[in-house]
């Protein structure tokens, strides 16, 4: 076949900018192809060589992540990771960003983000059983930020609720660094029998390629390259890039694909995501070491007069590629017909590893897959390593408010207050498996047909990574693990989403490098492998860039879901203790941000060995049925953790931290550090008085400090010598944090 598309010419700078390729990359294309690409090929190369598809900057860095482990069935490289959870079942999960589309159109951007991550999971044959989200916006009191926030939340609910997958958890922060670039990450978790786990690897020359689902329109053309450039004034003009999702179609597609999971007729399945048909067909063939020949004239369209280029790069949602033997085409199509899903045979698998696109008899593109998928030159550091320099605008020793007042303000902070206004709009129960609902630490979802449960969480405090990328990222892993451990589960694997600014800036590049090292540090220390993830770069505008934002999505396994431990105080008279460090500083805390609008010095200390021992202690204590509740201490420190456990359980607390009489300035600062400092590696536990001795022994065995600090009861939060706050007042502050002031 000869290519009859426009004659190859040397593209102008403007043409290269259009397809988001650099002059050097173009030179590399020509060198690898031994010829000039034609215009369509250039566009296709631009999309697949975009950062979004090729990971040209992050791939070399991601190699540092530990990805192996005894439970790992599928590490990074497929649509989602998969780990063994016993009983012949696997848990399949991944997190993904949809930041750029959400900044342009919050509802649809977030909704299609959910749609995309669902497809990544059911493409593997797994039934999605849970969704989680991780969101970041600018200050909530700014109308535009509230608009984005409400739109994104409605979009996530709108899609997930309609598809019938519960949204069981997530996290939310507001910080001025996200004003122009919100962060919208969605995670999906699915379950599949080992034998039905599917892979997206095409094989068998002559096999047919089916395109199933929505008709193809001009949606999101350039979406991939769009996500690889920063937002500027002209972003508005790229608006046709916005896609409108159809969750109803997704639900039908999901059911049909799950019906076919594990079916020997299905050779491979791959969802359509970034760079549309190009990205998916190319990856599908490349993973299988074969080629593919696509005829765009066979693709059903929603719009008239689409060019082959538009058809290939359209990011219309709710579409799937399926590879089957030609003899099975009819019978497989019948399954899709039953669900009223349209399907077309649009191509064939080739033996030679080539990516061929034709429009009927006319050739449009013929590129070696090795060049298309793997050819993008990896980018290395723009310059020598840089360390973040700690800024010290002003020393912060103590809160400007008395402790009780400080607590109320923290509880009313949109970063800490109740998330109920959000998750009550998410169906978090469909599936009949949600044992621990959103709102406390990790959610717990039971695995139907077994006694087991999965503990699920997303975490990542960007205040820490902003100051100390490496330590901050390690803390994100530890915090996620703590949330999982607090339920009694054992963390088994994680997924991660790295949201950063422009990596062509040396500082950003090194932040990314450091953050990945930090994830690796914690994963190695805790023995938790990384099985999937996503990188979102160029989260910056002309005036601002986001703080390095590492989001960890973690899965843990609970052997007996009936014994899941909760975080809200359970019984009056229970003793309360803190395991791990008590003292802390106010650096990098929510209080520092709230009171002074700054975030300075360094992220809290992190001792990974201590962290590991603390997890071991909590796990053993829950297993031995010694605990009534467990809760980790995160934003807002010990005081907020106490208030949360009180509010969730509806019972007050009386605590003696031995701080009464600390009146001198130095003393006040120590008190505030204890109450509101965010020291790592600690848990707040409650238990029956009789368990006290055993817990002490257990702590000794793990070489851990355990300090009994108080008793559950009453209807006030009392910390002797520091505060006495009515639970009702705390609740008002906590529950009003996200509610808009009219």
């Amino acid at each position, binding site marked *: 076949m000869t290519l009859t598309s426009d004659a190859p010419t040397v593209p102008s700078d403007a043409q290269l900018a259009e397809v988001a390729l650099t002059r050097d990359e173009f030179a590399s294309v020509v060198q690898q192809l031994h010829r000039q690409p034609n215009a369509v090929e250039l566009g296709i190369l631009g999309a697949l060589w975009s950062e979004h598809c090729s990971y040209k900057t992050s791939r070399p860095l991601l190699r540092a992540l530990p990805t192996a482990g005894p439970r790992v069935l599928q590490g990074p490289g497929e649509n989602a990771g998969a780990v063994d959870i016993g009983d012949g079942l696997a848990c399949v999960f991944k997190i993904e960003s949809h930041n750029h589309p959400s900044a*342009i*159109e919050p509802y*649809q951007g977030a909704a299609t983000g959910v749609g995309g991550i669902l497809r990544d999971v059911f493409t593997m044959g797994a039934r999605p059983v849970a969704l989680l989200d991780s969101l970041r916006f600018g200050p909530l009191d700014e109308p535009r930020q509230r608009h984005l926030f409400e739109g994104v939340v409605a979009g996530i609910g709108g899609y997930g609720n309609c598809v019938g997958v519960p949204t069981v958890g997530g996290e939310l922060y507001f910080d001025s660094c996200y004003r122009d670039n919100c962060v919208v990450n969605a995670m999906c978790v699915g379950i599949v029998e080992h034998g039905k786990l599917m892979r997206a690897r095409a094989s068998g020359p002559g096999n047919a390629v089916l395109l199933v689902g*929505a008709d193809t*329109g*001009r*949606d999101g053309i350039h979406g991939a390259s769009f996500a690889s450039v920063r937002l500027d004034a002209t972003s508005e003009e790229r*608006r*046709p890039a*916005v*896609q*409108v*999702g*159809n969750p*109803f*179609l997704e639900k039908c597609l999901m059911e049909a694909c799950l019906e076919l999971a594990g079916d020997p007729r299905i050779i491979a399945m791959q969802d359509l995501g970034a760079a549309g048909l190009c990205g998916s067909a190319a990856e599908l063939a490349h993973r299988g070491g074969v080629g593919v020949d696509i005829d765009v004239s066979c693709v059903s369209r*929603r*719009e008239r007069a689409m060019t082959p280029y538009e058809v290939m790069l359209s990011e*219309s*949602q709710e579409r799937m590629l399926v590879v089957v033997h030609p003899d099975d085409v009819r019978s497989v199509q019948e399954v899709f017909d039953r669900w*009223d899903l349209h399907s077309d045979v649009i191509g064939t698998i080739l033996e030679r590893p080539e990516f061929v696109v034709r429009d009927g008899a006319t050739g449009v593109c013929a590129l070696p897959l090795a060049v298309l998928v793997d050819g993008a030159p990896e980018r290395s550091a723009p310059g020598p390593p840089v360390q973040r320099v700690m800024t010290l605008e002003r020393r912060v020793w103590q809160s400007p408010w008395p402790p009780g007042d400080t607590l109320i303000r923290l509880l009313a902070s949109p970063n800490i207050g109740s998330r109920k206004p959000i998750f009550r709009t998410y169906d978090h129960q469909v599936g009949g498996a949600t044992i621990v609902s959103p709102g406390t630490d990790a959610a717990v979802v039971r695995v139907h047909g077994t006694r087991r449960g999965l503990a699920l969480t997303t975490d990542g405090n960007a205040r820490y990574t902003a100051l100390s990328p490496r330590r901050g990222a390690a803390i994100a892993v530890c915090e996620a693990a703590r949330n999982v451990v607090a339920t009694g589960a054992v963390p088994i694997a994680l997924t991660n989403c790295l949201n950063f600014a422009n990596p062509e800036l040396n500082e950003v590049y090194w932040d990314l490098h450091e953050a990945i090292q930090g994830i690796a540090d914690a994963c190695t220390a805790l023995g938790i492998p990384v099985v999937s993830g996503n990188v979102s770069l160029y989260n910056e505008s002309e005036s601002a860039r986001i703080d390095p934002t590492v989001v960890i999505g973690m899965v843990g396994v609970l052997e007996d879901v009936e014994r899941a431990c909760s975080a809200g105080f359970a019984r009056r008279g229970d003793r309360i203790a803190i395991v791990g460090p008590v003292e802390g500083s106010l650096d990098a805390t929510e209080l520092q941000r709230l009171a002074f609008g700054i975030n300075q010095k360094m992220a809290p200390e992190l001792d990974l060995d201590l962290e590991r021992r603390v997890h071991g202690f909590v796990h053993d204590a829950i297993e031995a049925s010694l605990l009534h509740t467990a809760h980790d201490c995160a934003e807002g420190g010990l005081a907020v953790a106490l208030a949360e456990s009180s509010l969730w359980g509806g019972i007050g607390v009386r605590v003696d931290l031995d701080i009464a009489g600390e009146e001198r300035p130095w003393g006040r600062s120590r008190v505030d550090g204890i109450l509101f400092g965010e020291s790592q590696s600690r848990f707040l536990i409650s238990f029956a008085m009789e368990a006290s001795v055993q817990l002490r022994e257990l702590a000794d065995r793990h070489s851990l400090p355990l300090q009994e600090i108080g008793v559950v009861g009453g209807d006030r939060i009392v910390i002797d010598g520091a505060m006495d706050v009515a639970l009702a007042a705390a609740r008002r502050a906590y529950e009003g944090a996200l509610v808009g002031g009219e």
Partner: protein
Amino acid sequence: MTWVAEVVVQLKPVVNDPQGLVVRDGLRRLGFTGVRAARIGKHVELEVEADSEQDARESVAAMCEKLLCNPVIEDYRIDSVRATAEGRA
């Protein structure tokens, strides 16, 4: 004076309209086989105070720009502006 304005907000022609697809298919299944396409939009009826039709129209256009229409995916048109019975009286 009081005016009643009718505004239609529709998805831009290039934007996917899942509702329209379901309605089209639903109608066909009901035997209305002649239906070639359906698009679903919003119809907004506003009652506004303004000194003249011109003023009412301008103010409604501003409302569309600011709130009623999401220009990223939607277009709007003002179908009619007329004085209410009350306004006329």
